[in-house]
């Protein structure tokens, strides 16, 4: 099962890279949808059908809201390009793995059940052995995905212009924190799953509304600039 989780993490990162680096808002929305839906599958074992449905619906809803809001808006491509964004995601994922391994070592030292580096003992059947004695658990992969999304989303959120890129950054950072919360703190209960889904949707909606307003404001400013040339004002 865990090699499948590794594949899911790769899909999450790939979708996020597409979302932040593409020039086309439609492709960005698709990339975001892929990242969010794949994030919903990041657990071992999978949650109940209801919870899975809540996660998937929330992800798709966010992508749909952003798609509708960003349509026709000004393009905001990544200044780095997709290769650099992919490297950034990889670096973030590696950092997340390191964080998870460190936490596993702490847990093992305290007698916890999580597999830890360089410690003998039985491994869980689904754990992935990376090399030597290092065991990567499902939670570690969740943390890795979370930090990868954080690395990708932080820059557009903090430094991006108000618009679609910042909205996508907001969604990615929100999803990153939600993944980190589960990866570091353990599985969420059902009520929290609903609250988390609501938070994700609200983040997406907030980003979408503000991006739309920014596009309208920019269109109004452009119209005023054209009018200052002495030509008839047409909005």
């Amino acid at each position, binding site marked *: 099962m865990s090699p499948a989780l590794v594949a899911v993490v790769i899909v999450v990162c790939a979708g996020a890279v597409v979302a932040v680096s593409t020039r086309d808002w439609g492709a960005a929305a698709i990339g975001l949808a892929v990242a969010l839906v794949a994030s919903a599958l990041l657990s071992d074992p999978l949650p109940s059908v209801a919870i899975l449905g809540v996660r998937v619906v929330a992800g798709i809803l966010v992508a749909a809201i952003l798609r509708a809001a960003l349509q026709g808006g000004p393009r905001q491509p990544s200044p780095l390009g997709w290769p650099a964004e992919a490297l950034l995601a990889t670096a973030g994922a590696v950092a997340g793995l390191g964080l998870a391994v460190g936490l596993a070592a702490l847990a093992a030292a305290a007698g*916890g059940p999580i597999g830890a580096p360089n410690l003998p003992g039985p491994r869980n059947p689904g754990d992935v052995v990376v090399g030597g004695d290092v065991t990567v658990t499902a939670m570690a992969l969740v943390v890795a995905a979370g930090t990868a999304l954080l690395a990708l989303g932080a820059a557009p959120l903090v430094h991006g212009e108000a618009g679609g890129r910042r909205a996508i950054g907001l969604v990615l950072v929100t999803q990153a924190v939600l993944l980190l*919360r589960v990866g*570091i*703190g353990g599985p969420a209960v059902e*009520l*929290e799953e609903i609250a988390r889904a609501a938070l994700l949707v*609200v983040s997406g909606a907030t980003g979408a*509304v*503000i991006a739309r307003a920014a596009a309208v404001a920019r269109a109004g400013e452009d119209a005023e600039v054209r009018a200052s040339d002495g030509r008839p004002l047409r909005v």
Partner: protein
Amino acid sequence: MTLLVLATLALAAGVLAIVTADSRPAVSLVVGLIGALGVMALALVMPPEESLRIGGVGLVTTPLVRAMAVAWAAGLAVLALLEVAVGGRLTVVGPSLVGLAVAAVALATRDPASSMAALAAGGVAGVVVPGLSGWLDRADSPSRLPTTSRGSLAILGSGLLGMVVIAWGASAAGPFGAGAISVEPGGQFGLGLGLLGMVAAVAIRCGLIPLHVWAARFMEGVSPLAIPAAFAWGSAVFVLVALDWSQVALGPTAAGDIERLLIVALALTSIVLGGLAAMVHDDIEHVLGYSILQDAGVAVLAFASLEPQVVAAARNWLVASATVKTALAAWAAVVRTTYGGHRLADLGGWARRSPVLGLAFAGILVAAIALPGFSMWDARVTLIEGAIPGVGFALAIVAAAMPAIYLGRIGFAGIAPVTSAVAAGPSGRPRWSGGRATGWSDGSMGSAIRAVPAELRANRAALAAAGVVALAAMALATAVGGAGG
């Protein structure tokens, strides 16, 4: 079960009010008003102790949840009517109902991660809806949109930071790592760091100095009626959830010397500078904003000790101060609408022109100062003394004197000679506009009823002032009696 019904009603009414605010404002108002009254009724009949289990988490209704719901819903019902009197876009009731629903569930939930996620999700409406309305209404102020964006990021960011800290708490590196709370030096460092992380989240959410710029800019661009939902009540509930988690997960041992120093410094900065700013500013919206900020600074002092009696005092303080600032916000909105000005220089004699508003302001002033013997006074002393033993009582007197000064200035302006701006405004005294025809007493009941809307419009200022009196009475009641914290 009552809590669930209350939250569902508030959420449904709030969302419907937001969605219909522009296209059908009358429907939005009616839905919001019925929702607020329904929530208040449910809160009043809510049993003081009720528990149920939803989604694997227990929800426990406490006297605090009940008091918060009653005070907020009652204030919201009055604010809904005042919003009609004040005019403009409907931006108060909908977001406030959503915030109230989320707050009630968040306070009752025994799972802090769920509470934090819900608060972040529900608190955004209180910023985005009024912020965008302010941007739409004032196209000549393009900075309103970035202000709304920053405010939304602050609300969401504080919630996300809180979730990260809570996740750390439940991790192997946290205080519950491997099922044992560690107080060894390494563990103490972690506890302190976790406490500071949660305080940082609170500081962002409440807009404490020096993180106050987004809050100050936001308050400049929206109706004063929209401020309580985002900053008075919204911040209060966030602090309460953060305090509950800190008390359980970290405990009083988390605040070492350095942590205590940092927390006290942060709190005192907001208390002192917020109070000074309120004293210096001439416009009533800034006075309102900085007074709310000052109240938040007092509440943050609870994190410096996390003792049970201090946390209980913080609960009383937060609910009471939110009620008082709701009344002050209503007063500011009514004064601005009635007399057109918001600077003290333009508001000379406002209390002479509207004695009812003056009476309401007197009640707000007394509640904000919180005289010795008031529950709010005891809460303030306990909070300050708990964080700074020895000099706490003296500081509490200074903290009480500040509202006396910055609100007292406004009161003195009220009894000063009437300025031209105030004289030009409608009188706050109720009057019969003459809607009746000569010999009306012999006329039909229908003609008398048809005269009612005209009389209501003619007495808009007086009716709005009466609404502020009701809020001031609630503020006094909670300042005196507390919130059952």
